[in-house]
């Protein structure tokens, strides 16, 4: 925590959790998709579902999906901007199990045909936490540079990836691995102390058994 967590952020109101955090959830989902989203189906859980409308949560999530920051004064008008940019979206209430009351589950389709499902929560102060990726449990906040690797569940994938990170001089802060089932697909989430370059991501993408690689870099407003 620093002084500008106390005085700040500069944000579009009315709520750091339901508005600023919701923008960040959208931004995180967009960043993880890695391409321009063209379709978004958004499920809202708990307090996001019941009080989201009054807090502008819907507009905030769409704004984030379009790449706007929490302090962008276009946040309230994001629906019109989505129409301009060709992003179609739906919102529905839902009940998720064992998640924070301020949570959303977003299914995205990208302009290049990519698909991604992201579940994230906004527990307060504008901070967020991703709890699900493509049906698999995970937990990361985007406070650190984060590498998300979809890999097949086979021996050696983790060591190849961490070897590559070591070769690029990146220190692993945290590492999580979850799989759907034995021999199926798995998701590795690696938080690093240094920014992860596109070259690093490209090299990891080329490794055997790796299906998809996304990196998330925290920005001034991000996470």
């Amino acid at each position, binding site marked *: 925590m620093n002084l500008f967590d106390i*005085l700040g952020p500069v944000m579009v109101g*009315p709520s*750091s959790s339901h508005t600023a955090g919701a923008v960040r959830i959208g931004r995180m989902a967009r960043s993880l998709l890695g391409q321009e989203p063209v379709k978004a189906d958004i499920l809202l859980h708990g307090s996001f579902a*019941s009080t989201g409308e009054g*807090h502008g949560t819907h507009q905030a999530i769409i704004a984030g999906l379009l790449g706007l920051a929490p302090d962008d*004064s276009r946040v309230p008008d994001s629906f019109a901007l989505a129409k301009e940019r060709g992003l179609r979206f739906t919102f529905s209430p839902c009940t998720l199990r064992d998640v924070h009351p301020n949570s959303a589950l977003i299914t995205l389709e990208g302009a290049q045909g990519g698909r991604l499902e992201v579940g994230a929560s906004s527990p307060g102060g504008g901070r967020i936490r991703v709890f699900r990726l493509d049906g698999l449990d995970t937990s990361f906040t985007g406070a650190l540079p984060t590498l998300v690797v979809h890999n097949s569940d086979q021996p050696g994938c983790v060591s190849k990836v961490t070897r590559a990170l070591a070769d690029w001089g990146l220190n692993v802060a945290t590492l999580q691995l979850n799989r759907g089932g034995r021999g199926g697909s798995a998701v590795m989430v690696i938080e690093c102390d240094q920014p992860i370059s596109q070259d690093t991501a490209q090299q990891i993408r080329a490794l055997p058994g790796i299906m998809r690689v996304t990196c998330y870099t925290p920005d001034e407003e991000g996470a």
Partner: protein
Amino acid sequence: MIDFTSIQQMLEQARADGLPLWDAIRQADCHLQNITPEQSWEKMHAMLDAMIQADESYRESDRSHSGLVGGDGGRMARYGQGGNTLCGPFLTDVMAGALRMGECNACMKRIVAAPTAGACGVLPALLLPYAKHFGATKDQLVQALYVASGFGMVIAARASISGAEGGCQAEIGSAAAMGAAAVVHLQGGGPEQMAGACAMAVKNLLGLVCDPVGGLVEVPCVKRNVIGAMDALSAAQMAMAGITSRVPPDQVLDAMAEVGHSLPHTLRETGKGGLAATPFGLEYAPKDL
């Protein structure tokens, strides 16, 4: 280095370093963020500018989503123009400023959370009218923001700045405490007086519950920014008069933490108790999904 774990440590460290309190707080921020004093100053300046822009973005015709909030900042300013107000021109400007910013937030304008979005009206409502009525340079206002955030850091560490955790005392109460210290700085008071003002402002809003109608940052949040600013001014004036907090400031913050934890969950931002649970409030209650 100031570690923001206690007000006493903050004051002692500033004294040991021979720095004015605001500058000692800035030094600690540079250390935390690994930035230069100039970079930190620039960021704080940007916060002040964002506050000024937010205040200027106010439109009396704006309404919040529920329609419950909007127009009161304009109403108060017009009442002030009549010249025959109860509280005088300075306090009327303070109250109008707090209402304007609270309404801006509720109407999805760009604001500065200070320390939270719901309490964003208190600090600008103190600093901007202060500059107008008593004369203060932008640099002095930025120094005051350092003082405010330093005390805010200690409040966050020892108690809370989250309504869901500690009730409204943690949001409006914290903003008032930060603002009280900032105003003492502008008035030329010393660090002990700033600490005393912070403590008195907290004490006088201790136990304030978070009971938003419909679970929204509208009612009573906007008007509580007014009482936060007025609480800050009365605490600052007491401190400038030489009145001290009998309970030491750090112990006041510990009491704030304890009171916050004792509040039932219905009175901690759930929209299920207090004003939210009145027959009027229930008309705006979210339908459970």
